[in-house]
């Protein structure tokens, strides 16, 4: 009986991967269709490429972009902060806080954003006077709802509250997903609860929180276009103002579309960079950039551990 370890004289057969003809044909077809679509878009006079060119960088459109970005930024920040509070309430040991958080998310996730926007815009009809103070005593501050509920504040409130309900769920699930052993290990090392949360739980939760949050930013950017119903001059409403005067509806919608795509592309790129930062220690094997100054310089980095053990023994 021949040994399994005996050298095999004959050459091992080579593996040949067959060319996939179907793939090639399909690729060619897709390229052809794509070309046809591009020709029909760029060859179509009615797209009004000259008009698009004229308005792409016009002042009114650029200020619309500024408003869209501003709204996205502040609503995202407010929504995240509020969402974090709601998440912590939901995770707290106190039942009343849990109930409040549950009802809050139920309402602001359940009501469509457009309805919420219109509701806040018409808040004055519901509460003409906004009063701040203890119940039963004269109010400390009285505000006229008609004066403070501008399109901008209505948009800010609706978008932030809507966002906070989603962010609360994202943050809560991120915190819950960090293994229990992590906080146990940190506690066993003598770390105080606040430090455990700050330095051990939170950084790990961030890894799970950041990618969906970046998605929320992109959704928020697009959702801000809904504020055009409140005549708030965001990117879309600015385009609408222009086409209501010159009737170039399609070219101006194209201008808005181009900008939305550009902004979303930039955000997507940022998202991928941020994710990479928070994935430290989880991804494929990689070299660390940081060097430890005190380490002996003659030591080889990739020396197997077992050699060291033998040297130590």
């Amino acid at each position, binding site marked *: 009986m021949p040994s399994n370890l005996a050298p095999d004289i004959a050459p091992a057969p080579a593996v040949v991967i067959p060319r996939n003809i179907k793939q090639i044909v399909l690729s060619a077809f897709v390229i052809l269709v794509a070309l046809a679509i591009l020709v029909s878009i760029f060859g179509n006079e009615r797209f009004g490429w000259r008009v698009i060119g004229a308005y792409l960088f016009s002042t009114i459109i650029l200020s619309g972009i500024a408003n869209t970005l501003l709204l996205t930024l502040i609503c995202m920040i407010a929504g995240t902060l509020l969402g974090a509070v709601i998440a912590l309430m939901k995770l707290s040991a106190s039942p009343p806080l849990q109930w409040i958080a549950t009802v809050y998310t139920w309402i602001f996730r359940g009501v469509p954003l457009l309805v919420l926007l219109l509701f806040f815009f018409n808040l004055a009809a519901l509460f003409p006077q906004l009063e701040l103070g203890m119940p039963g005593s004269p109010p400390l501050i009285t505000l006229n709802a008609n004066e403070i509920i501008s399109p901008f504040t209505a948009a800010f409130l609706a978008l932030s509250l809507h966002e906070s309900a989603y962010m609360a769920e994202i943050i809560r699930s991120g915190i819950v997903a960090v*293994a229990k052993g*992590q906080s146990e290990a940190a506690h066993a*090392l003598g770390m105080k609860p606040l430090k455990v949360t700050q330095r051990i739980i939170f950084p790990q939760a961030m890894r799970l929180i950041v990618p969906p949050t970046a998605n929320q930013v992109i959704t928020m950017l697009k959702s801000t276009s809904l504020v055009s119903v409140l005549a708030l001059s965001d990117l879309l409403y600015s385009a609408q103002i222009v086409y209501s005067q010159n009737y170039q509806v399609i070219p101006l919608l194209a201008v808005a579309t181009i900008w939305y795509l550009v902004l979303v592309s930039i955000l997507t790129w940022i998202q991928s960079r941020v994710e990479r930062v928070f994935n430290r220690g*989880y991804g494929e094997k990689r070299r660390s950039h940081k060097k430890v100054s*005190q380490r002996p310089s003659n*030591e080889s980095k990739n020396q197997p551990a077992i050699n060291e053990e033998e040297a130590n023994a």
Partner: protein
Amino acid sequence: MPEVNNPETVIELKRITKSFPTKNFERLVVLDDMSLNIKRGEVVCVIGPSGSGKSTMLRCINRLETLDSGEIRVLGEYVGYKEVNGSMELLSEKATAQQRQRLGMVFQQFNLFPHLTVLQNIIEAPTVVNGVHRKEATKVALELLAKVGLTSKADAYPGELSGGQQQRVAIARALAMNPEVMLFDEPTSALDPELVGEVLRVMTDLAKAGMTMIVVTHEMQFAREVADRVVIMDKAKIIEDGTPEEVFENPRSPRTREFLARVSGTNGKA
């Protein structure tokens, strides 16, 4: 080897009882009126069938679990409790933090912090808890890494290491807080068989250096060769407590004999 002429009691478990609620609203008793004293420099291996309360006992010592009754003293003091009118009152996690530093703990699942490098894992607690300067903590950490044979992995992340390497880092991390006692909760149970040896070697070195250790383990050979005392637990109670020779060669209770026979039958290590 233990300092025979200094038999100071480091850990004192007095009549501790611990139970967990079960699904049908009963209570499962995992520690039943149990007492145990550990002296300075002693290496005590705690063995026994799973579910006998070994790990819970260990976790009660640094108050990862709270007691139902009884008292535990570490170097004469409570950890996570204070005495009020003759009973033990539970302290907050915040107040407990400081007292836990005397106890180093090594977990079955390593529990290294995955977002930090090996070095950062080790210097985290000294810098954050004790305010040790980063440079000083790094120096100590590298000495500890040399001790566990992992100097070259200082900048690696835990996810890049084998289980055995991770557990050795976890030991170094616990040692960085300069504990008086080390608690090992089945440190080799999650490891591939070929990686068990490297962890046990580090633990043997630690025992030889005079560290007081409580080791919950299934490694009979380690218990035989390294332990000063072997404690066998079964059904929430200690059923055997003595030197390895006494326990392994002349067990008093038939349950111990039964357990030892079963263990030696399955893994052949006893």
